[in-house]
C-alpha cells in the first residue's frame, strides 16, 4: 500500500482536494472493491445481453419455433428455453442486487465511515485539522456519492440494455419490483437514501456495529414499505364487469398491473371477489349474490403507461427522504460540535 503513497506534493490523479482525498485513502480497499463490483455487474449485464442474442440467433437458424415443437424440435426448443431461463435468473439476481445495494451503502456509511470515527475517537484528529466537522462530513459523503452516481449510471444503462432484449421468453414484468428499482434515476435515489440514513444513524448511534446494523434495518424497512405501497403512488384505473350479458366484456389494456379485483353491490359497496365462492349449486351461488346485492365485478389496475409516473413518484419520495436525512445529519453535527 505504501508504494501508492508518495509523501511529496503530487498532482492528484483523481482531481480531488483535501478531505475528499483523505477519505479516498482511508477507505481505499472498500472503494476499489466497489468499483470492481460495479464493473463486474455491468460486464455481467452486457454478457447476458450478448449471450441472449447469440442463443436467439442460433435458435432462429434451426428453423424451430416455440409454438411448434413437432418435427424433432423438442430438444432444441427445450435447450433454448433453458438457456433463456438461465439468463432470466441472472437478471433477477441482478435486480435483487439493486435492492441490496442501498442497504449495504447505508450500513457502510453508518458504521465504518462515520460511527467508527466517533467510536474510536479519530474524529478528534480529523476535526482538529483546518477542516470543519461539516466539511469533514461533506467529504465523507461526497466520495461514495460520486462513486455511486457514476457506477450506478453505467450499471443502470447496462441493465436496461440487457433487459430490453430478453423481453421475449422470460422477462421481468414492468410491474415487478426489480423493474422499478433498476430503472431511470431510482437506483441512484435508493443509494442516496442509504447514504442519508447511514449518515444520520452513524452520527446518532456513534458505535460501529450498532450503527451498521440499525442503518441496514432502516434502509431495508424503507425499501419494503415503498414496495408495499407502490401501487398507491399513482391513481388506479378501474374497469367494471356487469352481470348482464351486454356488460360482460372486460376492457383491459395489454399487460396490466392488476392491483385488486372484487365485486360491487348495487349500493356501490365493494366486496371481496370470493364472497360467494365455494357454492356447490349454481342456484345457491345466485342466491348468495342476490343476498349481497352483487351487481358486478371490478378490477383496479395500472396500465403499462403508468410505469413512469409510478416510478418517478417513487424516485421523488426517495430523494425527499434522503435530503431530509442528510439535513438532519448536518444539523445534528452542527448542534453538537459546531
Amino acid at each position: 500500500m505504501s508504494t501508492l503513497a508518495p509523501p511529496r506534493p503530487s498532482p492528484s490523479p483523481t482531481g480531488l482536494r483535501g478531505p475528499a482525498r483523505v477519505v479516498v485513502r482511508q477507505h481505499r480497499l472498500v472503494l476499489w472493491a466497489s468499483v470492481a463490483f460495479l464493473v463486474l455487474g455491468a460486464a455481467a449485464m452486457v454478457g447476458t445481453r450478448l449471450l441472449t442474442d447469440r442463443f436467439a440467433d442460433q435458435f432462429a437458424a434451426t428453423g424451430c419455433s416455440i409454438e411448434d415443437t413437432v418435427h424433432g424440435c423438442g430438444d432444441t426448443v427445450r435447450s433454448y428455453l433453458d438457456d433463456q431461463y438461465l439468463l432470466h435468473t441472472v437478471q433477477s439476481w441482478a435486480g435483487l442486487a439493486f435492492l441490496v445495494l442501498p442497504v449495504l451503502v447505508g450500513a457502510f456509511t453508518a458504521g465504518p465511515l462515520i460511527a467508527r470515527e466517533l467510536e474510536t475517537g479519530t474524529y478528534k484528529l480529523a476535526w482538529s485539522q483546518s477542516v470543519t466537522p461539516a466539511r469533514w462530513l461533506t467529504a465523507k459523503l461526497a466520495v461514495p456519492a460520486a462513486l455511486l452516481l457514476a457506477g450506478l449510471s453505467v450499471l443502470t444503462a447496462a441493465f436496461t440494455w440487457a433487459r430490453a432484449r430478453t423481453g421475449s421468453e422470460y422477462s421481468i414484468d414492468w410491474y415487478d419490483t426489480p423493474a422499478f428499482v433498476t430503472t431511470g434515476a431510482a437506483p441512484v435515489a435508493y443509494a442516496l437514501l442509504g447514504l442519508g440514513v447511514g449518515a444520520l444513524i452513524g452520527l446518532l448511534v456513534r458505535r460501529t456495529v450498532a450503527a451498521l446494523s440499525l442503518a441496514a434495518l432502516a434502509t431495508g424497512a424503507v425499501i419494503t414499505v415503498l414496495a408495499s405501497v407502490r401501487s398507491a403512488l399513482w391513481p388506479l384505473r378501474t374497469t367494471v364487469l356487469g352481470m348482464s350479458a351486454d356488460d360482460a366484456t372486460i376492457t383491459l389494456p395489454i399487460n396490466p398491473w392488476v392491483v385488486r379485483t372484487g365485486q360491487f353491490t348495487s349500493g356501490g359497496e365493494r366486496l371481496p371477489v370470493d364472497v360467494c365462492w365455494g357454492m356447490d349449486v349454481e342456484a345457491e351461488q345466485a342466491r348468495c349474490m342476490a343476498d349481497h346485492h352483487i351487481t358486478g365485478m371490478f378490477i383496479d389496475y395500472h396500465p403499462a403507461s403508468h410505469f413512469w409516473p409510478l416510478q418517478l413518484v417513487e424516485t421523488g419520495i426517495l430523494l425527499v427522504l434522503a435530503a431530509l436525512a442528510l439535513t438532519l445529519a448536518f444539523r445534528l453535527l452542527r448542534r453538537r460540535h459546531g
Partner: protein
Amino acid sequence: MTGAAIEANGLGMTYGRKRGWALRDCSFRLPAGRICALVGPNGAGKSTLLALAAGLLRPTEGTVRVLGSTDRAEIRPRVAYVAQDKPLYPQLTVADTLWAGRELNPATWDADAADRIAAPLPRDAKVRTLSGGQRTRLALALALAKRPGLMLLDEPMADLDPLARHQLMGLLMAEAAEHSTTIVMSSHILTELEGACDYLLLVDGGRVRLGGESEDVVAAHALVTGQVRDLAPHTVIESRTTGRQLTALIRPDGPVDAAAWDVAEPSLEELLLAHLRSPDAPPLLTPSAHAREAVAAA
C-alpha cells in the same frame, strides 16, 4: 499588552443532565506566548477544557475566546489539539498520516517540521503497529507541522518513557520558542511539566482554582512554621499541627511576622497538593490570568 491565547468567561460544560457538570463557571485568561501547565486530578475537567478550547465541543454555557476569536471556522486552522488517546487512523501508514496532515492543513503545513519530528519513525509502517511513544511522536508531528498559534496537548507525555519524554519535550520547547507558540499541556503529574512551563492553571472539581505565572503563584504563598497561634489576616490554605508546632501554607495578606514565623517559599508541588487537599480554599488568579470581561464587569 499581548493578546490572550485563551480567554474563558463563565465557561460550563455538561455531557447530559444526569452526569453533572464536567466544568462549571470557569473564567480565566491565558496570555499568548506562554507554556502553560494545566494540572489537576483525574476527572477534574482538564480534557473537557482542552476540547472546548479546540472547538471539538460546544460549551453548555459561557464562552471561550481563542486567539482573540470565537469564530470556530477561523480558529481551527490556528489551533492544534492532541487528544489524550492520541487518535490516529490505524490503517494509514506514517507517510500517509503526514500526507493527510498536509491535505487537511494546506494553508499552514510545514512539511520540513513534519519530516524532522517524524524522522525516527518507520515511514511505511502502519499506525496500528506503532508503539505508544511512536504514536505520540507522530501526533506531535501533525500538531507542530500545522504551525499553530496555540497548541493544546492533553496528557502528551503520559505513555512515554523518561528518555523519550525528555527528548520530545525538548523538541516541543524548541519549536515553540522558535515560533512563539502558546502551549497548554495537561497532566495529573506535575513533575512531568515542572521546569518546562512558566504558567499554571489548576483545575479541580470542574473549576479553575489557581491561575497565573508559576513564579507569581508560588510567590503569593508562603510556608510558615511556628508555635500554634492565629494566622489572621492571612488566608490559610492548609495547616497541620504537630504538638505545639504549626505548619501552614498561607496566602499572606501583608507582611508575615518574621519574628514569630519561619517563612519559606513552598515548592510548586507542595502548593498544588495543599490546594487539592483543601477544596474549600478560595481560588487565586494573578492579574494576567483574570478574564478581561469579568474584570470589566466587576
